[in-house]
């Protein structure tokens, strides 16, 4: 994967674009049938993946190998079959960003709460996207206000060196 963009997100976007085209050209009824067709196939492959994960069971070495492959991981996320739980995945994703954003937990409504670190590059949009990718089952991402930074960077007072 990677260069050819062959992952669940790209496929999902392509499917949506094609459904939109069909809806525009052939009307809502045709598009609804196509929706059901896609659902049928996705659910079949999902059921197959579920069986695979059940067969692997507690073999954590195999599970780790599987989620190391971005394509496989993206498909496991589509079907809620990822071996890591929601919290673990969000922590892992934030850790990969390396910007020190802190995961505060997922609340009852399914919203993931994250506090941004004060470093640069830890923008809300990037963090939100990373959490949404790692845990698509969450209902959204709430960014908590930054804690007061230890060092306030201000303009150099006039006349100082």
């Amino acid at each position, binding site marked *: 994967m*990677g260069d050819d963009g062959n*992952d*669940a*997100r*790209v*496929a*999902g*976007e392509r*499917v*949506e*674009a094609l*459904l*939109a085209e069909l*809806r525009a050209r052939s*009307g*809502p*009824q045709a598009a*609804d049938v196509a*929706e*059901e067709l*896609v*659902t049928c196939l*996705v*659910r079949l492959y*999902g059921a197959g993946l579920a069986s695979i994960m059940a067969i692997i069971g507690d073999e954590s070495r195999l599970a780790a190998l599987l989620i190391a492959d*971005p394509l496989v991981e*993206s498909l496991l*996320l*589509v*079907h*809620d079959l990822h071996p890591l739980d929601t919290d673990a995945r969000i922590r892992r994703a934030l850790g*990969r960003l390396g910007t020190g954003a802190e995961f505060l937990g997922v609340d009852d409504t399914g919203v993931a709460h994250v506090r941004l670190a004060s470093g640069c590059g830890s923008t809300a*949009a*990037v963090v939100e*996207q*990373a959490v*949404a*990718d790692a845990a*698509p*089952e*969450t*209902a*959204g991402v709430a960014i908590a206000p930054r804690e007061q930074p230890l060092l306030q960077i201000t303009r150099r007072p006039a006349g100082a060196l």
Partner: protein
Amino acid sequence: MTTIHNGRGGLPGPAASPGGATGLRRFAAPPRPRAAAEKERCELCGEQVGDGHAHLVDLQGRSIVCACTGCALLFTRPGGRYRTVPDRVRNDPGNPLTEAEWAQLSVPVGIAFFFINSDLGRVVAGYPSPAGVTECELDLAAWDQLAAAHPLLAALEPDVEAILVVRGQPYTTDSRSAQVYLIPIDTCYALAGALRLNWHGFDGGDEVRRILSESLAGLRQRAREI
């Protein structure tokens, strides 16, 4: 790690997943309640229609089709393949059908409806039964006589309206007169369908009597005098 793009832009459709991160998730979800998708559609333009949508009579196919408001407005005048079913309900309490007049029609049952089939150029009488709507023979001369004496019957629009006649207790307090309504033909078929589905035994049973009583109560409320 995967490069992060925000792929949400331009995703169409009401069903696009809110997260958008993995768009295929919405297809993997447990079977969606199909109520929304299964909603009835206008059979002319394909637009989704609500519960209280209009119907058209397809005069060529002799069938009733669902229609959106826009299409229904197009076919309110006679003269084409389709004709919109009007939603008026009329009665004529001051000019009831007498037992003697009913007897002239020789309809053997207590619930019957009449409509003009413009294709055949005649009045067709039907009555609900466990087998659906059963047509019965009708003395046309007698109908014409009745229509001359009853403006309600004369007001019947061909193909799209029906005259519903319900006689006897418990539907009428006076056993010698009948309840007569001018009703939309789709209402008429809906009633016949409901009666058929719930028909038990020889006379239909309590459920059929309940449905009929409720329908008549509804018609009484909707009805305006002709």
